[in-house]
C-alpha cells in the first residue's frame, strides 16, 4: 500500500515535464486529483496469483505503477550511524497500446528515482530525485538477471546465477553523496496481504501485488563530501505494483518497517482519513525469526503518537515518535526517528526516516531499527 501514493501523485506530476526542484518548489499535489487518474486499459490486481520468479522481480509495464524500494540502517566502523532510502518508481503514462514504435525513444514508461541519506551525527539529510523515460536504455527494469536502473543509479544482481535476486548491488551517487552497497537477504521472501495480493480499497481490482525482503545483510561504502565510510547494517526491500487508486477520503498514511533484535520484523501501515480517523484498510505483517509470517489486522495494533516535529521547510507538522503495541504478542515498542529532519522536499513531499526502537516483549527489553514513512502532513489536501 504504502508508497502507492507517490507514484499516483507522479501521474499528475508527470504533467510538469521537468519536475520541481527539491529546494525551490512549494508546489503541493492534490491526492484526490492524482487518484482520479483513469485506470481504463491497464491491468488490474484482481486477486491472488502465483508469482513467477525471477521474472516478477522485473517490471510489470501493463500496470500503472510499480516501485522497488530499499531502506536501511547502517553503521561505520566507528559506529557512526546512517540511514538510506533508494527507490525507483515506474509509472505508465498511458495505457498499453499496440501502436508501432517508430523510435527507440518512444515510450509510455516514466521512471523516477529517490535517494536519501540521513547522517544524524552531523544532522544532515541528503535527498535527491531524478526522472527519465523508460526507453532508449536510459532507465528500465528487467529480470532475469535483475537490474533496475535510472541513468547511473542502479540496483542490480551480482549473483553468479542470473536468476537469483541476491546478492545484489545498489549504486547511487548525486552531488558527491553516494552509496555503493552489497545486499544479501537473510530472510526468505515475504508475500504481503493475501499471498502477495494486498487489497487497498473497496471494489474489484483496488489492490496491489506486494512482496518484501524484510531483513537483508548490507555491506559497502557511503560517500560524503567529507569522506568515505565503510558501513554494515541491514536493509529492507519492497516491490509492489498496482493500477488502482485510494479511496477519496484518504489523506495520507503512516508506514512502519521495523526490524527487532530478537529476529522478528513488523510491517504496519495505517491509512488516515480526512477527519483524522483510521481507514479500515490498515494492517500489516509480522515476520517471525524463522522467516514464517502472518497477517496482522488493524485491531491487533495500537498506535500512539508521542511527539511532533515541524518542518522548517514546508511547515508541515509530522508526528515524531510513537508507541506501537501489539497486545496479543505482549509487545510494546517506542519508535523514535534517529534525527527529526528526514523530510524529502522533492516533487512529492514526504518523510522517510530511519528510526530506533526500544521497548519490551513479554516483559523483556527489546530494541531494533527501522524506517518510517509519513505522507500527507504538509498542509495540502494530501
Amino acid at each position, binding site marked *: 500500500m504504502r508508497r502507492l501514493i507517490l507514484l499516483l501523485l507522479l501521474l499528475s506530476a*508527470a*504533467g*510538469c*515535464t*521537468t*519536475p*520541481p*526542484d527539491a529546494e525551490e*518548489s512549494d*508546489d503541493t499535489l492534490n491526492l484526490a486529483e492524482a487518484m482520479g487518474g483513469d485506470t481504463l486499459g491497464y491491468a488490474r490486481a484482481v486477486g491472488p496469483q502465483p508469482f513467477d520468479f525471477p521474472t516478477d522481480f522485473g517490471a510489470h509495464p501493463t500496470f500503472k505503477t510499480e516501485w522497488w524500494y530499499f531502506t536501511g540502517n547502517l553503521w561505520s566502523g566507528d559506529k557512526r550511524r546512517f540511514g538510506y532510502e533508494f527507490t525507483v518508481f515506474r509509472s505508465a*503514462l*498511458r495505457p498499453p*497500446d499496440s*501502436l*508501432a*514504435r*517508430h*523510435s*527507440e*525513444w*518512444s*515510450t*509510455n514508461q*516514466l521512471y523516477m528515482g529517490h535517494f536519501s541519506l540521513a547522517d544524524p551525527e552531523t544532522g544532515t539529510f541528503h535527498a535527491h530525485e*531524478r*526522472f*527519465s*523515460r523508460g*526507453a*532508449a*536504455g*536510459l532507465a528500465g527494469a528487467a529480470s532475469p538477471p535483475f537490474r533496475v*536502473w535510472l*541513468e*547511473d543509479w542502479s540496483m542490480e544482481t551480482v549473483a553468479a546465477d542470473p536468476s537469483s535476486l541476491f546478492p545484489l548491488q545498489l549504486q547511487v*551517487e548525486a552531488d558527491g553523496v553516494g552509496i555503493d552497497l552489497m545486499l544479501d537477504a537473510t530472510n526468505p521472501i515475504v508475500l504481503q496481504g493475501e499471498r502477495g495480493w494486498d487489497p487497498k480499497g473497496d471494489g474489484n481490482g483496488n489492490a496491489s501485488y506486494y512482496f518484501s525482503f524484510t531483513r537483508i545483510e548490507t555491506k559497502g561504502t557511503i560517500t560524503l563530501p567529507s569522506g568515505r565510510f565503510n558501513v554494515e547494517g541491514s536493509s529492507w526491500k519492497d516491490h509492489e505494483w498496482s493500477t488502482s487508486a485510494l479511496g477519496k477520503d484518504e489523506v495520507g498514511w503512516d508506514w512502519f518497517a521495523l526490524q527487532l533484535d530478537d529476529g522478528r520484523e513488523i510491517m504496519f501501515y495505517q491509512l488516515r482519513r480526512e477527519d483524522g480517523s483510521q481507514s479500515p484498510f490498515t494492517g500489516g505483517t509480522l515476520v517471525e525469526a524463522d522467516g514464517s509470517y502472518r497477517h496482522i489486522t488493524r485491531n491487533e495494533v495500537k498506535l500512539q503518537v508521542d511527539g511532533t516535529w515541524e518542518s522548517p521547510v514546508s511547515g508541515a507538522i509530522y508526528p515524531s515518535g510513537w508507541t506501537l503495541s501489539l497486545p496479543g504478542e505482549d509487545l510494546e515498542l517506542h519508535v523514535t526517528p534517529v534525527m527529526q529532519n528526514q523530510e524529502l522536499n522533492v516533487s512529492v513531499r514526504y518523510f522517510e526516516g530511519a528510526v530506533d526502537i526500544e521497548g519490551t516483549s513479554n516483559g523483556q527489553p527489546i530494541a531494533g531499527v527501522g524506517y518510517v514513512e509519513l505522507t500527507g502532513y504538509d498542509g495540502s489536501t494530501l
Partner: protein
Amino acid sequence: MALSILGVALGVAVVVGIDLANSSARTAFRLSTETVTGRATHAIVPGGGLLQDDTYRQLRTETGFRNAAPVLEGYTRAGAETGPVLQILGIDPLAEEPFRSYTGGPQGNLDLGAFMGPSLTGLISRSTADRLGIQSGASLALYREGKTSTIVILDVMDPEPGFSEASLTNLLIVDIATAQSLLNAPGQLSRIDLILNEDGRAAQLEKLDRVLPSGARIEPASTRSSTLDQMTQAFSLNLTAMSLLAMVVGMFLIYNTMTFSVVQRRSLIGRLRGIGVTAREISGLILAEAAVVGLIGSTIGMVSGIFLGHVLVDLVTRSINDLYFTVRIQELNLSWLGLGKGLLVGMGATVLAAFAPAREATRAIPSTVLRRSEDETRIETHGGLLRGIGFFLALLGALILWMSGSSIALSYVGILFIILAAALWIPSFANIGSRALRPLMGRFFGIVGRMAASGIHHSLSRSAVAIAALTVAVAATSGVGIMVDSFRTTVDTWLRYSLEADIYVSPPGMVFRRNDATIDTQVERQIRAMDGVAETYSVRTARVQIEGRMTDMVVTEPRNRELEPGRYKKRSSYDHREAMVSRDVIMVSEPYAFRYNTDVGDSLQVMTASGPRTFEVGAIYYDYASDLGVVQMARSRYETHFTDRYVSGLAIYAADGVDIDELIDNLKSATADGQGLLIRSNRSLRQASLDVFDQTFTVTAVLRLLTILVAFIGVLTALMALQLERARELSVLRANGMTPGQVQRMVTTQTGLMGLLSGLLSVPLGLLLAWLLIFVINQRSFGWTLQFDVDLMVLFQAVLLAVIAALLAGWIPGRSMSRMNATEALRFE
C-alpha cells in the same frame, strides 16, 4: 529645399534599409540559434552526419554526467511544399530543465505520455499557431523531402522570460522519438547539449572524453552561430558596400542641393554681408541649415528605410535560404544601432557636403556676389589641381587594392578612392567633351546647340558636379550590371557542361544549393531499373569534418564518359578520376581552394566513420553552386569510409532513341505513390538554377534602381541650380530676341548633352568598376573565376539612361526658365 531633404532621405533610406535587412537576417538567425541553444554552454557535435544516440545513453548511465540534453534538429514545411518553414527541435523533456523551459516548468501541464508516446505530437508558439490557423489539439500536416506526415499539436507555448515571441516563430518542439521519426533518423541525434561548470572543467571534459565517439568533439555553444555567421559574412558585407555606394552618390546629391540653396540666395547673402554679418556667421548659418536639412532628411530616410528594410529583409532571407541555410524567423528587427548609423551617415554627409557651398557663400564679397565668372575661372585654373588630386587618389586607391590582400572592406575603400578620382577628373573630361562636341552640336542644332555646348563649359563649377554625380551613378549601375551579367554567363556556361545527364531526380530540399534530402532507397532502385534509363549516377550531399571544419561534401559515382576538361581549374599529373576510385583522393571546388588555401597535391584530413583519414587533393574544379567550398569524393570511397548509404539525387542518361519528356512522365507516374520527387530535365534544372541565381541578385537590382533614383534627383537639383544662376544670362538672350521655345530647347539640349557626356564617361568607369567587382571583390569574397563578359546592351542602356535622366531633369528648369519674365530677371542687373 524639399529636394535636398528628399535627396538626403533617399540616401539614408538605402543605407538604413540594407543595414536593417542585413542585421535583421543576422539577428533573426542568432535569435533562432539562441532559442534552441538555451542555457547550454557546450555541445557534443558529430564529426559528420549525426551522432548515435547511444553516446547519450552512455553519458547518462555510464559516466553519470547529468548536465546533458539530447537534441535532434531539422526543418520541415507546414502544410504543403510551399508552406512556411518550421524548425523541428527534438528534445527529451525530462532532460530539458537546465537547458530550455519550453516544455513547461513546474507549473507546466504538458501531457508527457502523449508527448513521448508513439503518436506524433508537438508544441508550437501561440503566434505560430495563430498564423497557421490551428489550435492546440489540432492536426498539422508536415511536408518534408517529398513526404507528408501529420502531427498533433498538443499545446501552444509562450516564450521564455527574456525572449521575444519571435524567438519561437516557426519552431516546432517535439520529443526525440517524434523527431527521429519525422527526420527519418532512427537512433540518431544532431548533438548533445552540455552545461559545463567553470570550476573543474578539465575533470568534466575528461569524463566526457571517455564516451566521445570518433570524430565527435565538444565545442562551445557560441561556435554554431558564429560558424553560420561566417558563412554569410561575405554576402552581407557586399550588400552593405552596395548600400554605401548609394550613399556616395547621395553625397553628390547633397552637395548639389546645398550649393543650390546657396546659389538661390546669393543676393540675400550679399545683402547680409553688406549690413555687416561676418563670413563666419554666414557659413555657420549655412552649416546649421545643412544640419537641419540633414536631420529632417535623415529622419524621413530612416522611416522610409524601415519600409525598404521590410522589402529587403524578405529578399535577403530568401537568398540566405537558397544559398546557405534555413532561416525560420523572418522579420524586420529594428535596431537603434542601424537607425543611428543612418542618422549619422545622413547628417555627416549633409554637413560635409555643405562645407564647400558654405565656404563659397562666405567668399562672396558684397560687390561681386552677382558675378559668377570668378568661379568658372577658378575651376579652369584649378582643373590641373583637381586632376592632380584625382591622380593621387587613383594611385592611392590602386595601392589600397593592391595592399589590402583579402580584406573585402578595404577593397571597397580602394574602389571608393578610384571612384572619387574619376569624379575629380570628370570636369576636365567634360570640358574637353563639351568643346569637342560644340561644332558637332552646331551642325545638328544650330546656334542653340552650340550655345548649349559652350554653356556646359562656361558653368563648369555647377555642371561638373552634376555630370560627375550622374556619371558615378550610371557607372556604378552598369558596373554592377556587367558584373551580374558576367556572373550569370559564367554560371550558365558552367551549368551547361556540368549538367550532362538528361534527367535529374531529387527530393525537395530546404536549401536549394545544399540539398541533403534523401531519396527512398526503394524508389531509387525502382528508378534505376526503369525502361528507357540507360545509366544512372547517384549524388549524395553530406556534411563532413575536413581539417576540423564542417564542410559540404558531394559524393559522386564516376561516369563511364569523357567529361568536359574545362570543368577543372587545376589537375594533378595523374588521372585523378581513376585515383579517386582506387585510393584516398578527393577534389575540392575553387572556392574551397581559395578559402582554405588548398592546392592540388595537398593532404586533407577527413573525419570518417572510423576516425581521421588523410586524402590527397587530386584536382580543383569549378563550382559556382556554393561560395562556402565543396569537396567531392567518389561513392566507392565514401561507402568504404562512411556508414551512410543514402543518395540525395540521381542523374539519368536516357537510352538511345528515348524521348526525354516521355521518360520524365514515366518516371513521374512510376514514383507517384511514394515520395514526392523533383524529376527535371537537364534544361529545366538549369533554368531552376538560373532562377535561383537571378533571385539572389534581386537585392542588387533593387539597389541599382535606387542608386539611379538618387542620381536622378542629384542631376535635377544640380541643373536647377545651374539654370537658376543663368536666369540673367537667359533673360539677356530673351531680351535679345530669343523665343521662349528656343530657351527651352537650349536648356533641354544642354542638359541632354550633359547626360550624354555622363553616359559616355560612365562607360570606361563602369567597365573599370565591373572589372574591379569581378576580379577583386568577387575574387576576394568568394574565390570564383568569372568570365569578364561585357554585354554592349548594358553599356548602351547606361548611356541612354544618363541622357534620359538628364533630359527629364532639364525639362523642369527649362520650362520655368522659358516662362521667366525677362524684364523682371534683368531688373537686378
